């Protein structure tokens, strides 16, 4: 049995800590905003120039001057602040954002990430993704374990052009969770989805990885 998208988001939400400043990418990561535990103070950063992102506006209350990095209309909170793109990426580059959760196309066992272009296909651009993975203190990638074709996305080396080299700290897929020592260049399996065997996981994974001692393997 594999984890659903909701379960993957819930697993990513476990990376939140009280007091964290967090940047969430589009897709599953965006759902994490709804999973902040009660009483935990987490401030959401939007790289287009906002700290303290609120929920979507009520109907009829959208403000064209207030959008998130995905260009969706949003709202502000009482503690919100606005700033320029230069200041926003100064926060990111300077290591002031505690956690970034974002999607991926491929991740390597050394923590390389590819998530911005596929050669030959329409290139949209990397937006802020390269800055986020290079600057944020802890980078969590949430992605399906395999492509629709079945090809593994967690690999020895990324085949797609990189977004960042040695940048991923944690990889959450629908099958498993891997911790990556991005300096050491090595990955460790730390969680398996219920009912997924190690053999099944290995057959769907190109990357090499160690197995955490905490995982009671038979």
């Amino acid at each position, binding site marked *: 049995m594999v984890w659903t998208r909701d379960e993957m988001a819930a697993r990513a939400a476990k990376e939140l800590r009280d007091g964290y400043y967090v940047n969430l990418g589009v897709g599953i990561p965006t759902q994490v905003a709804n999973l902040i535990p009660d009483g935990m103070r987490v401030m959401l950063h939007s790289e287009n120039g906002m700290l303290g992102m609120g*929920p979507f506006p009520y109907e009829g209350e959208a403000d064209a*001057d207030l959008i998130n990095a995905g260009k969706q209309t949003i709202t502000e909170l009482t503690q919100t602040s606005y700033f*320029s793109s230069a200041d926003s990426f100064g926060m990111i580059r300077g290591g002031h954002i505690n956690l970034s959760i974002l999607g991926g196309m491929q991740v390597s066992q050394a923590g390389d990430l590819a998530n911005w272009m596929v050669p030959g296909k329409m290139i949209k651009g990397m937006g802020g993704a390269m800055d986020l993975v290079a600057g944020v203190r802890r980078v969590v990638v949430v992605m399906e374990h395999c492509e629709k074709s079945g090809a593994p996305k967690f690999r020895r080396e990324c085949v797609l052009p990189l977004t960042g080299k040695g940048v991923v700290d944690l990889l959450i897929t629908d099958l498993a969770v891997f911790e990556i020592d991005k300096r050491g260049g090595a990955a460790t399996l730390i969680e398996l989805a219920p009912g997924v065997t190690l053999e099944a996981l290995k057959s769907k994974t190109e990357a090499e990885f160690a197995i955490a001692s905490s995982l009671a393997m038979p």
Partner: protein
Amino acid sequence: MNSKIYSSAALALSGEVRDGMTIMSGGFGLCGVPSDLIMALKASGAKDLTVIGNNVGCDDHGMWHVLANNQIRKVLASYVGENKILESRYMSGEIEIEFNPQGTLAERIRAGGAGIPAFYTRTGYGTKVAEGKETRQFPGQDGVPEWYVMETGLTADIAFVKAWKADAEGNLIYRKTARNFNPMMATAGKLVIAEVEEIVEIGELAADAIHTPGIFVDRIVLGSGYSKHIERLTTRPRAVAAAAGEQF
């Protein structure tokens, strides 16, 4: 002294645009875009322009009109995903795009305006973005050497800025996330033209709250028709949201 205030975008641009110029234009998506100035740029008919901006227009909006009018040769941007003309002309080779990471683009413009010809960033190291650029090691945040890429400052012949309010001195304030790239671009153009929603009396803008001091702004235009466009209207129904506590 002549007033910085011009009665229209066309007059503010009159005689200033030439073929081959580099133009910066603020905005993120449809937010904080100097639309009137862009339409005046289209009307100027200038060709072979290099345009610097995060998105360089979205379908049917902003710089898209100048693109569609075949005036642009090269673009520096971070994301063109909502801009089909730009995507397709790039794939066909008609337009050159230099993709910049968003933060690198912002910092390059800030550097250009602040007299910094080059700086180093970790962003893009080991990726296509670093190809052909100088890389070197410096101590990282924890003192361990890390690799960095040298990026250069950017300036433009003309910078278009969209602000919320201006006074006659050229002091500007921006509103919410419409600030984005505008403040840096206001420092990096040889000629800087601000399009604003309101021109207020000198003294109305609080001196401590001015985002762009007037020194950077050469010309001011009162924009027209601010029924602002929204690219992705996302709302929550009032009753359900209150009941379920769902936010996004």
